[in-house]
């Protein structure tokens, strides 16, 4: 697999088109909205979610924004992954994701934990693209902090 193909795996290109959760839900009834922006390339995302009444479970993640296929795929994969997840678990996944992405290829994301998003491990070898993959996750982190 060439460098380019390991970065842009089928799964990633596929998610960048499917964009799970794309289309921002109405603000009403949502717990938090976060807007994130990468000033270096102009990419941006707005990510909104609802927490269960007990405040412990992530529900109905939706988002909007534009950016490269890595950023779009990452948002899509993450949305799929965290739906219905306890917030503590989601936070732990965000931390692990950040650590792996900053590892310059030394840490692989566990497929059992990260599902499709594990395909983003390859991004960590491209320092300039790490921010693209992180954008949605930072928005989620922000939402959880606000919610």
């Amino acid at each position, binding site marked *: 697999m060439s460098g380019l193909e390991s970065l842009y795996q089928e799964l990633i290109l596929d998610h960048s088109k499917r964009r799970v959760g794309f289309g921002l839900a109405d603000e009403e009834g949502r717990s938090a909205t976060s807007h994130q922006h990468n000033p270096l390339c102009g*990419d941006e995302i707005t990510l909104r979610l609802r927490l269960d009444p007990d405040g412990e479970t992530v529900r109905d993640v939706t988002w909007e924004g534009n950016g490269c296929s890595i950023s779009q795929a990452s948002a899509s994969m993450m949305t799929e992954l965290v739906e219905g997840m306890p917030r503590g678990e989601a936070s732990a996944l965000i931390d692990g994701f950040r650590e792996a992405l900053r590892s310059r290829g030394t840490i692989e994301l566990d497929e059992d934990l990260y599902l499709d998003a594990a395909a983003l491990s390859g991004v960590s070898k491209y320092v300039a693209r790490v921010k693209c993959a992180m954008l949605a996750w930072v928005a989620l982190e922000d939402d959880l902090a606000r919610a």
Partner: protein
Amino acid sequence: MLDLAAIRADFPLLGERVGDSPLVYLDSAATSQKPQAVIDAEVSFLTRSNAAVHRGAHTLAAEATELFEDARTAVAGFVGAAPEQLVWTSGATAGLNLVAYAIGNATVGRGAPASRRFALHPGDELVVTESEHHANLIPWQELAARTGAVLRHIPVRDDGTIDTDAAASVISNRTRVVAFPHVSNVLGIVNPVAQLVALAREAGALTVLDACQSAPHLPLDLPALDVDLAVFSGHKMLGPYAIGGLYGRSEVLEALPPFLTGGSMITTVTLDEASYLPPPQRFEAGTQPVSQAIGLAAAVRYLADVDMAAVHAHERALEARMGEGLRSIPGIRLLGDAEGVERVGLWAFDVDGVHAHDVGQFLDSRGIAVRVGHHCAQPLHRRFGLTASVRASAALYNTADEVDVFLEAVSGVRAFFGAGS
């Protein structure tokens, strides 16, 4: 015709590889590569003649001062100017800030009585274009905000040309400054300097030319362009980082108040006040970029030896080949594809259905270095409905073969990302 093999051999970095591919460097509008002669000039200075200039009486310092002032003469000459019309800056951004702050200083009463002519008054207007690099936009925004002047802009037409009809109504007798790029770093079109200067002159406004993207690419005679002030950056014209030039008509530089203050720009200093030297020293506070000036002089000597008219012709051929090739690839939209205009060798474009970052990554995997993003021109991108584009920019050392490698790669982008399928 340039002897490209010989030229390329002068640039050590061009022999690098990216992964398995030879490097195809098409990012010279961001920063150019440096010929060995530039590196050697700096190293030779640092290892043999380095000493504080304009301040020492010892032999080494006298030698260093001479090399430094010879460099000024060389670089000034390259843009058609006299040495005392060239101020060293740390780059174009610093040069434009210098002008904006100096006008701000005149506005609050600093500088000699002759500086009053630059002072801004309520209702005064500053004019830029919609195609500005942020470096020629934000300093004017901030000057307007500090002084109460109004910032206006001349729009760009759909084809990337400056709307000179609109310019004639935007520029009025309220206009005090007209700042514009000789060549936009996104559009590559050589702007109609004479027309804009004529409008500004009629309005009695000061003209400020951003020559960053023209100085490395075409024969430049700033006095002949009749602008009041102009800036360029060394690192974009084969020279070192951290140096640039501010050219000024003598009469303008002489009246402008200082910007940065400190050592070597003064005559007498007391604890309460200082008096200032004439230009260019008035604008050169503190230790100057000495080795960099010497490096930049080597760069302009290199360019002049190759011959700027030949450089321009070569780059035009590359630009034409690139433009033609890109137009023939489905889903590519060129920015600023005006007909019948003079250009430098760069094209920015959008690939339908593929984000600029992905295009850049795809090209990088084939060793092709281009720039992706807004290229420090957000308003211009917004005007074309984009947040980012891909820009390929050539310099004298690029070849037609490299353009073909680039075109071949671009033609595979949409298929790879499954766009339009």
